[in-house]
């Protein structure tokens, strides 16, 4: 074969392509589905977890500042319970951040085990969805959102304390029952979304590996 024949051989590929493509396996939707999933997970992490943790921290800072200001102005007398309450508030925030960090770390280590192919990309996404689904009903998830409930209780406790009245559970419990239905609705909606993503990625995986 000389150089010209080589060029001729090369150009013959236009007429008789190197491969045939099984079009049903060419899934262009994978990157779009993946981007949708990531947006949804980010929205849940930032919109729910960080927003609730941030609000809890802000609430606790504000109410404890008011409490200790009232103590320093001599409006009320300091007791050991003020410091216990402060400790509980900080403790729940640390516990929540710790639970979140451990959970993320564990999953990040698991995610590193996947390769770079499209097949592995789908499996990685499936594992992300499974991880989110596995958090439902776990104690760690309860710890993660504990600061929100604790901030609510402590805020009322501080208001009662500054007002010089005995603490009543009625208001915090009332608020709790007001928030919980919204919380449950959001959880169900998000879980439904996750299950839809799971179904979609499982379908794609099945298409890529029929019979696996």
């Amino acid at each position, binding site marked *: 074969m000389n150089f010209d024949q080589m060029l001729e051989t090369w150009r013959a590929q236009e007429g008789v392509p190197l491969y045939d493509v099984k079009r049903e396996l060419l899934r262009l939707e994978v990157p779009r589905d993946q981007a949708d999933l990531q947006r949804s997970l980010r929205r849940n992490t930032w919109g729910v977890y960080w927003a609730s943790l941030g609000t809890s921290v802000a609430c606790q800072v504000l109410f404890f500042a008011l409490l200790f200001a009232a103590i320093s102005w001599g409006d009320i007398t300091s007791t050991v319970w003020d410091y216990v309450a402060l400790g509980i508030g900080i403790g729940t925030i640390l516990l929540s951040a710790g639970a979140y960090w451990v959970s993320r770390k564990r999953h990040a280590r698991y995610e590193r085990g996947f390769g770079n192919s499209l097949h592995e990309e789908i499996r990685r996404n499936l594992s992300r969805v499974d991880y989110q689904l596995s958090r439902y009903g776990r104690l760690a998830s309860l710890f993660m959102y504990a600061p929100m409930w604790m901030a609510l209780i402590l805020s009322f406790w501080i208001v009662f304390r500054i007002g010089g009245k005995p603490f009543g559970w009625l208001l915090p419990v009332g608020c709790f029952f007001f928030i919980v239905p919204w919380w449950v609705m959001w959880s169900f909606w998000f879980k439904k979304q996750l299950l839809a993503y799971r179904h979609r990625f499982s379908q794609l995986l099945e298409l890529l590996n*029929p019979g696996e």
Partner: protein
Amino acid sequence: MLKAKRNQVFEEWMESHKAILFKVARAYGATHADREDLFQQIAVQVWNSIEAFRGEAKVTTWIYRVALNTALAWNRKERKHGWGRQDLEAATGLLVSPASRDPRLEWIYERIAELDEVSRSLALLMLDGFSYRDMSQILGLSESNVGVKINRIKATLIAQLAKDSNDEL
């Protein structure tokens, strides 16, 4: 651009220019599983790029640019993370090879695979008859640099042809 319109353009491009995707996937993928994976990724990138196509370049030039950029990025990523993984992963059946292959074509791909990753791109473009100007635009190299590299590639191929023609080709 509407998704239906985009899909239609993609279908047309795939019908007329799928050979480019095959060639690039074949030149950069070491195993059949790699080629399928790379083909998928190039197809995805071509689909994504449709909106950015303004018609200033020829469709073949545009598809080649997208395909080679994807292949170069894929190659770097694979080298970094996927060392030794390819053999473990099974092919998906996306690309179906014909029963008989032209041994001369196989020979060309083997020689291309021996080149460095930029020269591999240039070899593909040269074999498809692109001008130095088009090659420099696709790869972002100067025309003189393209000329030097192409001359080296040609010389290597001619020397290999002379060497191998006696026995196998």
